[in-house]
């Protein structure tokens, strides 16, 4: 009964009740002081979390958004995108190999140490690149069609990809000597799938 009332209250405040439902609800309100009390609480929540003019905003920020954007745009035009993408991809390959080692050693209880020693070699910029790439790789081509749900619900087979790379190969990759060999094991699409799977894993 309480649950029904809460749902009714929220729908009432949200303007989602039909004329008939609204009439009945308002009658219930008149007959029940406890319901009225709960309604007041919900109304207070709605008031706390609704449109409120922020009066003391520093206007210089909003006035500076477009000039800041134009400056970034100019800088971006001068950058070499391919070089940056290649660098980010290389860092990702190393990270994925690190994951494989981590997964392998987790079974023996020393996975966290391996993972930690590998991530120690990553600079803040590397981490930023990886995070950028992982979170945005699907957006760059067509952002308006991007659906987070699709990525989260898709069952990418990281385990299968990881199984194709031996532990030995992973060591070589992490050491930075045989990155090209890794490219031959899985294509770029498979790696992207692997990365998506990585970020979907609960422990990540």
């Amino acid at each position, binding site marked *: 009964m309480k649950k029904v009332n*809460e*749902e009714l209250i*929220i*729908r009432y405040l*949200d303007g*989602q009740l039909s004329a008939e439902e609204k009439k009945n609800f308002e009658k219930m309100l008149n007959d029940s002081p406890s319901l009225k009390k709960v309604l007041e*609480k*919900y109304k*207070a*929540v*709605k008031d*706390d*979390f*609704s*449109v409120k003019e*922020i*009066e*003391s*905003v*520093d206007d210089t*920020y*909003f006035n500076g*958004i*477009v000039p*800041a*954007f*134009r400056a*970034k*745009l100019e800088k*971006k035009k001068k950058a070499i995108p391919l070089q940056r993408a290649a660098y980010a991809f290389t860092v990702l390959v190393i*990270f994925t190999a690190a994951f494989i080692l981590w997964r392998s050693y987790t079974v023996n209880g020393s996975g966290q140490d391996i*993972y*930690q020693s590998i*991530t120690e070699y*990553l600079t803040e910029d590397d*981490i*930023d690149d*990886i*995070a*950028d790439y*992982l*979170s*945005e790789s699907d*957006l760059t081509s067509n*952002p*308006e069609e*991007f*659906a*987070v*749900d699709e990525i989260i619900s898709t069952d990418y087979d990281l385990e299968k990809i990881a199984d194709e790379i031996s532990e030995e190969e992973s060591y070589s990759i992490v050491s930075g000597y045989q990155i090209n060999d890794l490219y031959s094991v899985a294509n770029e699409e498979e790696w992207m799938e692997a990365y998506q799977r990585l*970020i979907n894993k609960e422990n*990540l």
Partner: protein
Amino acid sequence: MTDSRTDYELVKDFISGDESAFNKLAMRYQEKIYWHARRMLGNHLDADEVVQQVLLVMYKKLKSFKFQSSLYTWIYKITATRSLNLIKKNKIKTLLSLDDQITDSTVSGNDIIKNIEEKERLDNVNKMLQKIPPKQREVFILRNYDQLSYEEISEITGKSVGALKANYFHAFKKLKELLDEKGE
């Protein structure tokens, strides 16, 4: 100075090579983008990053915008996606840094709100918003703050109206519980 041209006219002018038309569009929507992102992410610096990202996407993609949906719905869609993306990116960064400390996302030395009381109020509200799941938060913000209809939110998020109403209900209920806890 406000521009009397419609969104459609500004987009047309921009496509025809009038760069200043884009500036007008950006200025028209920048506050909506900022406040949506700020409520989603809880702090000024991340919101500012989203604003710049959204403007960049708009700049690159406006030329292929067909006006099959309204421009503001399209901008909200990019803003919502970028905000969720930055939440995910921050999570990944925390993981890669092996940073076990939970950082307070609302803390920022660099803010645009000058009044301390107002900033505190906003920080409190944002802290509570950060406690509900991002998808529920998104629906709640689009509905309560941006005052969009469920049909518009459905266009932005790609979810059914029924699912959105359920999200809104759970978000609302959770916020009430959080406020109740705070009041105890």
